[in-house]
């Protein structure tokens, strides 16, 4: 069964350092999402791509976060500089298109900023 791949699974970084997460969506999925999930809360949408274009990044803290999906396939989410409050699970999801199709989530990257 096809899966959304994310790496790394776990990341510990010091505050003020840069950190990057990678996501490879299911082949053929045009829509890609990045979410942040703080312990005990629901996932919060950071950015949504349709192919290589950003559809929604209204919740992305653009002073320190950036996301790209250059060829409309895999994607990278970067934080620079990391802050203690960025400690969370970062989830990537993909769906076939922007219609009402189900989204498939990866296992996530657990980030700890120390």
């Amino acid at each position, binding site marked *: 069964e096809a899966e959304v791949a994310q790496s790394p699974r776990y990341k510990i970084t010091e505050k003020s350092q840069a950190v990057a997460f990678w996501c490879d969506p299911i082949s053929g999925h045009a829509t890609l999402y990045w979410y942040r999930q703080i312990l005990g809360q629901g996932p919060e949408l950071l950015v949504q791509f349709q192919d290589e274009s950003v559809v929604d990044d209204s919740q992305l803290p653009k002073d320190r976060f950036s996301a790209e999906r250059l060829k409309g396939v895999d994607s990278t989410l970067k934080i620079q500089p990391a802050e203690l409050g960025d400690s969370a699970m970062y989830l990537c999801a993909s769906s076939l298109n*922007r219609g009402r199709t189900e989204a498939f989530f990866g296992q996530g990257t657990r980030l700890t900023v120390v």
Partner: protein
Amino acid sequence: LAKTTQPISMDSYEGQEVNITCSHNNIATNDYITWYQQFPSQGPRFIIQGYKTKVTNEVASLFIPADRKSSTLSLPRVSLSDTAVYYCLVGPSNSGYALNFGKGTSLLVTP
């Protein structure tokens, strides 16, 4: 976007049917109702989606009354492995299948 309200937590015994209700009073005409399940340290997993009346799949049933201001996810004969957080999402299908999660309902199933 329609706001959703769910119970924060629910408890059940194994073998019982569990019904989780979600309120979405300001649901729009083109909104669909979708439920996701999330286990600890994993990403959410799609369970079921519906627009009106009743939808059933191999995992759950979704009941939506005529006014669509609420919906009920029904899990038949739950097992310990159904312990998870369940999220109700309401979103328009024509603007990118909005995936806005609330706090969800934490279901605990005990023997």
